């Protein structure tokens, strides 16, 4: 897969930035406006899927290697579980929102562990969805190779 035409490549390289920014916005403001880690993570993943469709797999591989991607996946999951454990350590119980009175209501920095959890989930969902799409697309090439042999 060598990618699509110049027009598609140019436009997607511009749009990519906007999509990633939008994904980050959805994740960071998840505790104030509709959205959150899951939706934002899918948006982040879709920006890389668009790059993959426009530029080809090899280009995206250079930008975000598969091994790094699966590490990010694990890292996001561990981070979310760690937030829960921190509640156990610093707060009263497991998953305790021990920072909930930190910051002011309706501001970006508020509501304690909720934005942190959103970031962890966003990282996890984005990395894992991109990972599974990448694996599905490479798998198809292998199976078609088998048929030709």
């Amino acid at each position, binding site marked *: 897969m060598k990618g699509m035409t110049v027009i598609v490549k140019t436009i997607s390289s511009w749009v990519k930035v906007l999509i990633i920014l939008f994904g980050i916005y959805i994740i960071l403001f998840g505790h104030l406006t509709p959205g959150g880690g899951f939706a934002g993570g*899918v*948006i982040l993943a879709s920006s890389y899927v668009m790059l993959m469709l426009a530029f080809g797999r090899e280009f995206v591989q250079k930008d975000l290697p598969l091994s790094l991607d699966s590490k990010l996946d694990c890292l996001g999951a561990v981070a979310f579980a760690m937030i829960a454990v921190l509640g156990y350590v610093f707060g009263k119980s497991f998953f305790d929102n021990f920072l909930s009175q930190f910051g002011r209501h309706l501001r970006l920095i508020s*509501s304690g562990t909720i934005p942190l*959890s959103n970031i962890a989930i966003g990282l996890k969902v984005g990395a894992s969805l991109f990972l599974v799409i990448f*694996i599905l697309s490479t798998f198809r090439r292998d199976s078609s190779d088998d048929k030709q042999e």
Partner: protein
Amino acid sequence: MNIMFYVLLLFILIAAVIAVETKNLLSSVICIGAIGFGVSIMFLFLRAPDIAITQIVVEVLGLIILIRATISRDLTFISGDKEFFGTVVSVVIIFMIFLVGIRVFDTIPEFGQPTFAQAHNPASETYIEDGLEKTGAANIIASIILDFRAYDTLGEATVLFTSIIGATVILRRKSRKALGELE
């Protein structure tokens, strides 16, 4: 608003039936996309923008993958006959569930009425009234899924993690080692 709701419902049902019945794989995939977008508009009507956003982004991503998968395949037509016995059994079962469903739908509260009103000590009222005070999150959905019921969200994240690990395991190239490699 109510009329729109039923129109949407009908649209989703028709798309679902076509998706199952059509023999062309590509049109089936497009119908699945139509179902997904219909559902996300439905969520907007039900004033659930959080779920609508998630539904729409997942739908876009899923549709891209499915269309990519179907376009590059040569075999886009499904063939094969249906078994008569199987069809009869499934029709009978669906009809029975339909009959039971009519009785069941009589018992659940009317559409638009809060279902938790009959509860003894409803948690949902506390979420709405004290959610901001107790958790500090302006978005009540976020306060429920990441604070009150964060354990569920950990479970959901794990479901995703499990399916990704499962997919990488199932799709790996070489699954067994040659006999000599075992010491």
